[in-house]
């Protein structure tokens, strides 16, 4: 058994175990932390497959940003665990069905489940000779699939606008801070020197 194969089985094993723990952990915060562990192992497998750019992007985007927000929300909410347990059996058939469909799809893609050998991995990540896979990805993304890429950008923009419209509400008169005005405020507009007679005050 080569070192690479051993590392692959280690990463895959931990990844699956972590994924199981995500759905079975009692504490939702633990679930999110196991999800992060699963992401990490997936990134490790990307590195093994020679897709170091995807591995890093997976860590930056999913672990560094998305999972932080998950963790944020889960920590802020006081989740009732018993209520969550109740739905478990009800949703189990649907979940199992989705899992089964995914599994069948994977079978159709790879023909067999021989992921451990090099051939399917090489087929999945064809990197041209003498080119880092960042260059290869960039070349494909910005030439062949340029319009699809732009379209994805526009869809994201629409999503941003949608999120802002959903959360923006008029709170009525709010005292807003105008930094520009504060910075440009001069001394005469703010301070006044007055001579005050004793016992009279400023009338």
């Amino acid at each position: 058994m080569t070192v690479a194969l051993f590392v692959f089985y280690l990463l895959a094993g931990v990844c699956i175990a972590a994924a199981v723990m995500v759905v079975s952990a009692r504490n939702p915060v633990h679930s999110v932390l196991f999800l992060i562990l699963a992401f990490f192992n997936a990134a490790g497998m990307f590195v093994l497959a020679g897709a170091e750019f995807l591995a890093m992007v997976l860590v930056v985007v999913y672990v560094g940003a998305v999972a932080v927000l998950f963790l944020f929300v889960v920590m802020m909410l006081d989740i009732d665990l018993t209520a969550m347990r109740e739905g478990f059996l009800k949703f189990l058939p649907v979940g199992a069905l989705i899992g089964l469909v995914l599994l069948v799809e994977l079978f159709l893609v790879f023909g067999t489940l021989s992921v451990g050998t090099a051939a399917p991995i090489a087929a999945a990540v064809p990197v041209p000779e003498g080119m880092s896979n960042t260059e290869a990805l960039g070349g494909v993304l910005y030439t062949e699939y340029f319009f699809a890429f732009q379209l994805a950008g526009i869809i994201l923009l629409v999503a941003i606008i949608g999120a802002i419209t959903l959360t923006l509400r008029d709170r009525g008169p709010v005292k807003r801070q105008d930094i520009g005005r504060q910075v440009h405020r001069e001394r005469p507009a703010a301070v006044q020197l007055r001579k005050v007679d004793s016992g009279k005050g400023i009338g």
Partner: protein
Amino acid sequence: MIDGILSVAWIVTQIMLVVGPLLLGVAYATWAERKIIGAMQLRQGPMTVGPYGLLQPIADGAKLFLKETVIPSGANRGIFLLAPMITFVLSLIAWAVIPFDYGMVISDINVGVLYLFAVSSLGVYGIVMAGWASNSRYAFLGALRSSAQMISYEIAIGLIIIAVLISAGSLNLTEIVLAQSGNGFWYVFPHLPMAVVFMAAILAETNRHPFDLPEDEASLVTGYNVEYSSMAFALFFLGEYANMILMSGIFATLFLGGWLAPFEMAPFTWLPGPVWFILKICLVLFVFFWARATLPRYRYDQLMRLGWKVFLPFSLLWVVLTSGFMVAFDLLPA
């Protein structure tokens, strides 16, 4: 088999050669900070333990080591103990891709910059986990502030890194440094506004003054690490300073030409590359301490406004400007 063991031993030696001096550097960064701030405030700083107080960091370390580790009764034990370890380990693993001289790097990977960015974006986990596991309101508030702040400033950092990458044409740190070679044409000159923004963003990213709201002692006691004591606290402390040194190293690599001498001529080239690199790190670290001694703390809404409404649009504009300039003058690296 022997070859395998030898290569593993060589890697371990390299790691030791980086981590050992780094931990010493962390210890003396705390000493330098107290001395520098002392000098700026017309005080002496540490001066009783050893000559010029040079043994003070060792004494502090010994004190923390000998204290009792207290775990609060309501704390989530596992995560409570995991959090400082994560913070500390993350501050060390990033050094794997930092080049100290041409070829003097533990792992010369193609996506070095992305790796650094990924590791620095993970730093938030140690803090969030500490804040949540402590089961204390102050710690939790500190953790929330910290994570919101770090996510906000990471976006600006990412865009600044993109501007540098467009100029260098590579994600490999060694190649980024080499792209800056030749008579001091470091990226700090063409990208001066971005260097300033990057400096401010790394202050926020490491939770340092004037953006140290996560440990705002006036309102949050000390924020996310309030329940920690002894070695658990020491790991946070070491992690924070190691992160500062790391961020200074990233600044030196991206903007100050890494190990390169300012001019490729006689008196400057006498010093070897790693010495120049360390000198540049010290320069950036000095700015960290200087900011701490000089600037008052930001208010939290001002901090968020600065990150989202000033740094983000400005660095985005700079990316567009840089790429436009490179395309217009046909300077894009092949």
